């Protein structure tokens, strides 16, 4: 059992610290300009963080205790492929879900 006092401490501390992380640059820097080389790096934040976050989840899903799982691999490939071809978020999500359940049904 999780101790309620510990739980509430974690909820509040994690919330406050997460807010400070989110507020760090927009809050402190504001509209002071950043040097070009910094901006050049920041342009790639999204494409550098999200793939790194998702790759281990696709190859070693926690839900299967880290064992590679064919339906999840099919779903990931379908999402990525349709997303690249159509540039349409809804189509990519639909393809991922369809790939996941179809592969689960067939395998």
């Amino acid at each position, binding site marked *: 059992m999780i101790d309620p006092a*510990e*739980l509430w401490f974690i909820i509040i501390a*994690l919330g406050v610290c997460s807010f400070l992380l989110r507020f760090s640059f927009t809050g402190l820097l504001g509209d002071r300009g950043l040097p070009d080389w910094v901006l050049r790096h920041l342009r790639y934040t999204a494409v*550098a963080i*999200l793939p790194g976050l998702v790759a*281990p989840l696709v190859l070693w899903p926690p839900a299967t205790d880290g064992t590679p799982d064919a339906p999840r691999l099919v779903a990931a490939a379908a999402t990525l492929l*349709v997303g690249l071809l159509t540039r349409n978020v809804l189509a990519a999500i639909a393809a991922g879900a369809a790939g996941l359940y179809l592969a689960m049904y067939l395998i």
Partner: protein
Amino acid sequence: MPPSSPKRTFWRGVRDALPFLLVVGPFGMLFGVVGSEAGLNILEILSFSIVVIAGAAQFTALQLMVEDVPTLIVLASSLAVNLRLAMYSASLTPHLGAAPIWQRALIAYFTIDQSYAMAIARFEREPEMPLADKVAFFLGCALALTPFWWAATVLGALLGQAIPDWLALDFALPITFLALIAPMLRTLPHVAAAVVSVALALAIASLPYNLGLLVAGLGGMMAGAEVERRQTRRAKP
């Protein structure tokens, strides 16, 4: 330059975010299920989602508390998962840094992977968008998604064990991120950043406290910036 119309841009943000409800819903429900299995009541689960609003960190914290890890380690590990939010903040600064402080605070609270990724993709395609419109677009995305995330965690907590395993709710998160990333891979530097990030993340996945993600993220950003620098240098006479 298009005339500023924050109200219309707000609704455009809402509309752009709608497809993500399909994946935010299942993922939020999964947090509710896992939370109730860990013995949390509805109020605790909902407070978690409202105060923290960061799925990955919430799962990490819950998992470690169930494993009875010391409180400070729980906090440090979950915060490490959230360090990427500071990088999002830095990346939003050139676009939103000039907004009034209360708007920046509101934006900070609502910075999640999806609102950040959608907004930055839009700002890059329309850099001339007026400041008020950028703020409105961001808040449109955020306000379409977050109340839904809260409601989904409560629904998951209520349904609990009734949700069968074969639904594979866990995979809503990877599908979300892949659907966000794919349309962003427009140029060679973007592709380079993504490829380096994936390679690093897989190679050093064993680093504790999810620190591997930060290394992978920084490596990806450096790769993207370097490829862009070489391209511009070659383009000059």
